[in-house]
């Protein structure tokens, strides 16, 4: 499934009201580790049909970063039924990211 760019404007519809769990990747273009993690997050989005992947650029969306206390990137947050249920900070192995979704 294609990756959705999440903004404050579409956050409610794309994330909170999503019928599938959403894996949201908080990133920025100046962050090296984010660039490493990003293709793996994309891969998970392609492999798992029952989830959705969203990306928040923290430079463009500082409000969302603040709202979820993102103080280090990359940060991954899993949303289920409108709630943040899991979170991980820093670069994680692929299995650990998949485990966040379980």
């Amino acid at each position, binding site marked *: 499934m294609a990756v959705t760019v999440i903004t404050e404007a579409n956050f409610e519809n794309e994330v909170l009201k999503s019928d599938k769990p959403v894996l949201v990747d908080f990133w*920025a273009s*100046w*962050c*090296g*580790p*984010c*660039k*490493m*993690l990003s*293709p*793996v997050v994309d891969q998970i989005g392609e492999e798992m049909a029952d989830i959705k992947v969203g990306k928040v650029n*923290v*430079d463009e969306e500082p409000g969302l*970063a603040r709202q979820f*206390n*993102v*103080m*280090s*990137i990359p*940060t991954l947050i899993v949303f289920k039924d409108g709630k943040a249920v899991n979170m991980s*900070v*820093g*670069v*994680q*192995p*692929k*299995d*650990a990211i998949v485990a966040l979704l379980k």
Partner: protein
Amino acid sequence: MERYDIAIVGTGPAGLEAAITAKIRNKKIILFGSAALSEKVQKAHLIKNYLGLPEAGGADLQKAFLDHLSQMEIAITDEKVTLIYPMGDYFSIQSSGDMYEASTVILGAGMVPGKTYPGEETYLGRGVSYCATCDAPLYREKTVAIVGFTPKEEAEADFMAEYAGKVYYFPMYKDEVHVREGIEVIREKPVSVEGGMKVEKLITTGSAYDLDGVFFLRESVSPGQLVPGLEMDEGHVKVDRSMKTNIPGCFACGDITGQPYQYIKAAGEGNVAALSAVSYLDALRRAKA
């Protein structure tokens, strides 16, 4: 991006021997570490059990090792490796200078004192960070402390000051500090990090500072942080007899794998690790053919 066969991290006896063995086996290698070799080599007093070099001092060994490298035309990439990420059939490597790709990785970066401060791990990602260049823009107008373990980190403090409202710099070394104006240099030792949901205070030997973030910038990160998912065993990287770690294509050798901390043991393990990496590369090529 150019893909190396083997990336080797560390310029102690383990990493150097791995590099030499891999080079003899005609592999395309990149060797990361200090160009003057590991400090542990330079500062060794006297080594009496290194085969063929009785009574060798650190400086003698350093010279002998460097001569061996130049004879084999092995260059050292003098950059600090900050993250190695397994991507499946290769590794993505981030250093202080650039990004690299390699099919296999050999960790020979020695043993780092694994001590962390109370509260450091609790607040990791909630105000504690190890990468100022990654997270500085998230601390716009905020108050942060940079705990720098080497003078190299002064540049990170300067970078942070471009964003943060207030920067305290705690040098963990004796040298004179050169940071930009406005950064407050404090010669106190951190004791612990405290807070509620996120970091609120850094407690030091002399005082306590109200702040939003603390950056611990150490000489080297622990192997588990360097390679996400790497299995450890009581502070050392867990390996088998062929120096394999739990991550396919990632090998470790030398002090990083555990005691005894001996030069000749480290060199021997470097040799084994390189040969195992060569076998792994062969298997990888066969699988792709």
